[in-house]
């Protein structure tokens, strides 16, 4: 069935959720970012719309963190599988640029989840993203601010690489993105 056969799902926080939509939300809570196993996709801020208009039917819209992120296809199928496991016979997962992701969409709990994985969380920003912002990243391991940015590009598109001059560890940061 084509996705256009269904009405557009509503933005996540726009209206009160019905009981089926609450089940969707609970299911999404358990879907982790495949590259950051401590962070679920709701806290990551990539779930932009959900809907369930009838029994057994679920729709979820995701937005990519980076347009070249290879984890996106994996996340789509993880979401699909989670919805099916939660009892939805018809689960539609779409990706759209409608709501552009930015790092401010990561929840407070999400920032803590990043730290638990050893990643420095991105600072909240108002669009100013330059090297000095990245250079001023506290070490997620010891908390020191005496750190050096090594490169804004890391092992995945969303990460930068840093060195802590205090505890002498290399660490990665989750980049601020506008």
């Amino acid at each position: 069935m084509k996705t256009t056969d269904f009405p557009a799902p509503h933005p996540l926080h726009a209206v009160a959720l019905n009981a089926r939509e609450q089940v969707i939300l609970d299911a999404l809570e358990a879907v982790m970012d495949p590259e950051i196993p401590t962070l679920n996709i709701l806290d990551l801020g990539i779930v932009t719309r959900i809907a369930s208009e009838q029994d057994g039917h679920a729709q979820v819209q995701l937005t990519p963190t980076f347009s070249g992120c290879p984890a996106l296809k994996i996340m789509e199928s993880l979401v699909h599988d989670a919805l099916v496991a939660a009892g939805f016979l018809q689960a539609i997962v779409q990706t759209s640029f409608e709501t552009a992701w930015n790092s401010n969409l990561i929840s407070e709990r999400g920032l803590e989840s990043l730290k638990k994985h050893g990643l420095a969380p991105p600072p909240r920003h108002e669009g100013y993203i330059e090297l000095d912002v990245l250079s001023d990243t506290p070490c997620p391991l010891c908390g020191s601010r005496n750190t050096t940015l090594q490169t804004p590009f890391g092992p995945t598109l969303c990460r930068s690489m840093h060195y802590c001059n205090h505890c002498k560890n290399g660490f990665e940061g989750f980049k601020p993105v506008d």
Partner: protein
Amino acid sequence: MEMTERHVMGLIELLYKMADDQLIIGHRNSEWTGLGPILEEDIAFSSMAQDKIGQSLALFELLHELGEQDPDTVAFTRNAEQFHCCQLVEAPIGEFNFSIVRQYLFDQAEALRFEMLMASVYEPLAMVSRKFRGEIKYHVMHGKTWIKQLAEGNEESHQRMQEALNEVWPLALGIFEEGDYEKEISEVNIFAGEAALKSRWMETVVPFLESCGLNIPQSDAVTGGRHGQHSPYLQPLLDEMCEVFRIDPNAEW
């Protein structure tokens, strides 16, 4: 004003040149994988390649929605004369100085183009432009950091930056070669046009390059790419990029 067929053709022309630029520069950036002068640069160019190719996919998807063939077919089955990229992006990576100067001049133009397109009346294009703009910031930051450092380094590094700029500049001016529908796409506010983009780009890159002690070359634009006339470098690039796809175009990956 009402959208006519010529407006849609202008939109398609715009999307093709942007998508082709992203795909080809993405492929060139990926050629630094394993060859970067330091590990961080290996990673930087590889990451930028990944961004560009992801962006080209999103643009090819928009074309598909407008009735063009699917992204893989469009990306991997056309020949050089069917591509609309500028000649800047198809030039070989050369040495690091060439790649860095090209990367900055191209990405600064992209950053401004996406910023302008955020206001496009064609909402799907405005949406992806909002996304790309945030990603491109890191690319511009990368190019500027290196140009400043090398242009202000020692005599040799300065000279090599100037040489690269002399070589890249006429190619970079070719980014702004006008298409056949400039008037159409600007009159309905799809895009303000190449001339408007070029003047914003000049206002941005000239002061920066001069602040690094570099001289702006006086040379004419190398054009043709937007109309399918390419340098001899494009076809061999396509042959390599499409080699695996063409062995079995129906393969499931």
